[in-house]
């Protein structure tokens, strides 16, 4: 079934579905066939991939804050009331 070829304009709207493995097999095949012959869409797909990768790096920008001691206190209190009562 290679009836309808995807246009670039259509393809850009399918990139997330493609990357999420959510395209039905025939649409996936059409997507890949288009990418194989289109430098522009290959660049676009690469841009989307890099965007995701770079967004992921934001998790390394750490927020400061030291709540560790307070949490340990909470844990120890919980433990006390759960294991040492009765």
């Amino acid at each position, binding site marked *: 079934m290679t009836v309808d070829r995807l246009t670039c304009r259509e393809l850009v709207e399918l990139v997330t579905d493609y990357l999420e493995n959510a395209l039905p097999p025939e649409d996936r095949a059409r997507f890949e066939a288009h990418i194989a012959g289109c*430098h522009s869409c290959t660049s676009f797909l690469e841009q989307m991939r890099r965007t995701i990768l770079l967004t992921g790096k934001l998790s390394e920008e750490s927020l400061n804050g030291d709540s560790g001691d307070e949490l340990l206190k909470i844990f120890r209190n919980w433990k006390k009331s759960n294991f040492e009562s009765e």
Partner: protein
Amino acid sequence: MEAAPENATQLLEALRQGDEMAFTTLVDKYQASMVRVAMLYVSSHFVAEEVVQETWIGVLKGLAKFEGRSSLKTWIYSILINRAKTHAQREGRYVQLSLDEDSEAGEPTVSPDRFNPADNPLYAHHWVARPDDWREIPEEVLVSHETLERIQQAIDALPPNQRMVITLRDIEQLSSEEVCNILEISETNQRVLLHRARAKVRAALEQYLRQ
């Protein structure tokens, strides 16, 4: 990365028995991420920390009743988001998110003027000009603090429902299943929001990297 299932089970078991190491492992793993997620709802870092602290109390109190129908992680984030919503409501900040509505339905995520018009004889709906090849951009420019800052700004400017999904998926690296469970939205809906969010961040990056 995600702990292997038996590890998660062991962790849960240890936690139930009052193992402090198990608790600190969990805190180290999720604390920073939880604060960021809480910040999606509340106005300050201070309140976010408070929300997260309450979440841990809720987790400990709920442990005995936790049946493991969802993963420990999904359960923790669900408690977190409930607590965060309560705080946001108290601050008068919480607006019910219409997560099921796509207010931008049908709108293209790439500007139509990037493509040839329909009446172009040879290249209808094809790119007018090839998008930049980011593989040619030096790594130190691409992964610079400035670039990451630009991404954060683009995310901050998103509608709340898109911001929520991209934060949980692409920053906190939760799976689509986890995000759907936590936000109680369908897979399809989640993908639509994620696509819109990613497309806007890409466009912002493109503009920034061209300067």
